């Protein structure tokens, strides 16, 4: 497999702030890499460095084998980029928007016409060619944005928080499209604050304060907490939470609507102790069982470790 993106030791500061502080990322063809992390972690700045929109303080970026510093044109031509607030022209139609981005990328005439039909078919916008972009629904606008980013068939696709504010049905549709782009052999980098979106990536880099703290597949990440998350459903929940927190083997208690997730150092102790200590306090235990950790459990534990 060829690395489509090779970014080494990227650094970028804004005044005293190290927005990106030594990031190294390698993404293979056909791979979806998820850049996940809190607000202000440096996700967007990293993408802007990869796309060449922002100048590096130090480090190197190679895209599709082209060096961003010395072969800038070729490197940029290999990238499709969907920015967080991608700008479509609201008063232009779907086709006019597509043509504009095609022209920017040097596509004209018959080549463009064929590509436009393919893309409109691909994103499901055939029949909407003459609708103004401002009259499209959020999901359709986003699909048009994707079509514009893909107009020149780039081998590398960078998506900055692509499904913010989009409903779950639209989000599933969007990811089906991304999956087909991946099957076509492109390398995709997605930044997202959403855990359910992160699990759709084949590899996740967890970013914090400008650095990638951990990089692994979703399954490897989940495995780091394997056997260390218990689900507890009990009434009343608040009293149960206080008792669980007091157990010496419970590191953390995460509250959900109708249950708690307990992160434990070792499950045996709490599994044997908690039923009786909860019962003694008059708390009704509906369920106490080990569960597969979610990516959310893993990230909260990573952040806690990092701050220690």
């Amino acid at each position, binding site marked *: 497999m060829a690395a489509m993106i090779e970014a080494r030791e990227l650094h970028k500061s804004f005044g005293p702030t190290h927005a990106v502080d030594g990031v190294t990322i390698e993404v293979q063809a*056909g791979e*979806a890499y*998820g850049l996940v*992390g*809190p*607000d*202000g*972690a440096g996700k967007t700045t990293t993408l802007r460095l990869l796309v060449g929109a922002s100048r590096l303080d130090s480090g190197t970026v190679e895209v599709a084998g082209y060096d961003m510093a010395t072969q800038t044109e070729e490197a940029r031509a290999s990238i499709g980029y969907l920015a967080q607030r991608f700008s479509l022209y609201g008063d232009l139609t779907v086709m006019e928007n597509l043509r504009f981005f095609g022209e920017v990328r040097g596509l004209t005439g018959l080549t463009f016409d064929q590509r436009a039909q393919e893309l409109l078919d691909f994103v499901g916008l055939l029949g909407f060619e003459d609708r103004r972009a401002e009259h499209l*629904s*959020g*999901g359709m606008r986003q699909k048009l944005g994707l079509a514009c980013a893909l107009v020149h068939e780039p081998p590398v696709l960078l998506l900055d*928080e692509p499904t*913010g*504010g*989009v*409903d*779950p*049905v*639209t989000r*599933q549709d969007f990811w*089906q499209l991304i*999956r087909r782009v991946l*099957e076509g052999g492109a390398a995709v980098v997605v930044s997202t*604050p*959403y*855990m*359910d979106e992160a*699990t*759709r*990536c*084949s*590899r*996740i880099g967890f970013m914090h304060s400008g650095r990638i703290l951990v990089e692994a*597949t*979703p*399954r490897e990440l989940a495995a780091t907490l394997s056997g260390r998350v218990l689900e507890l*459903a009990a009434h009343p929940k*608040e009293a149960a939470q206080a008792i669980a927190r007091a157990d010496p083997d419970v590191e953390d208690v*995460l*509250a*959900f*609507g*109708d*249950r708690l997730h307990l992160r434990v150092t070792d499950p045996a102790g709490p599994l044997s102790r908690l039923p009786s200590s909860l019962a003694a306090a008059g708390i009704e235990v509906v*369920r106490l069982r080990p*569960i*597969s950790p*979610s990516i*959310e459990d893993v*990230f*909260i534990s990573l*952040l806690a470790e990092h701050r220690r």
Partner: protein
Amino acid sequence: MSPDAVVAVHELSKSFGDFVAVDAVSFDVQRGEVVGYLGPNGSGKTTTMRMLLGLLRPTSGSATVLGLDVVRDAERIRPQVGYMSQRFALYEDLTVAENLRFYGGVYGLDNARLAERMEAMLELIELQDQRNERAGELAGGWRQRLALAIALIHEPELMFLDEPTSGVDPEARRAFWDVIYTLAEQGRTIVVSTHYMDEAEHCGRLAILDQGRLLAMDTPTALKRDVVHGDAWEIVPPPDASPGPVLDSLVRLPGVLRVETLGDSLHAIVEPGAYQAESLADALAGYPGVRVEPAEISLDDVFSILVSGGHRR
């Protein structure tokens, strides 16, 4: 309607011309509950909320909020509820304290009460030390908490939150929800509309809507058990195989209800008891080295089965 219902909705409908935005929806919300309203765009979430806030007149049916009728007593509802929109308006060049003071004034709090409420709110959202920082300089998660505090400044019994933690990271989301749970413990009632599963998991009960209709309403655990009615398995393709062909084989197996591609594995829902880990791996014997492990049913499963009829993917 039970005596403790803070929100009681009976056969509520709203049409715009021929378009039925909300279609005979009925539900109750009890004091101290955290209820989620989950649905795609155009499912009727916002229209329902606007009717409950007394901003929009129902076509038929009835609803009461805090015992007040949404048509007859519309004017009296709004001062008693809090509302936090996903596009909340903070004054970026005002400080945290100044934002709270400004909105307290809008709600007509007198000086003594305003001072008391401001302290309570700053403590609730743990922003005491940042009270003199400009709102525009706060990180995303803190801004969201300030917006919540503003919606709470007049001490409403009932809160409507519209996608309150969209775009924030898990840690900030957790801190936000800890505040919500504290409010619920105090006996306040919270209704959250969202289309994020991460957010929906935090609700005590969840209503799922599509095309104006209420499809199901229960705890997340009960929805996973009753709506999905199946077993979840995680299928890990062998290292050199791509998930595509494994997915194609999987959806053709009898008893397989739903398959979804995750990053490096597949998530399948099968009829209850249809397979054990071994028998499912045997059925996929064409992929030597494939692994099958037990998985958890997700709200995505619930949502897909209810809204898309569990289509296979």
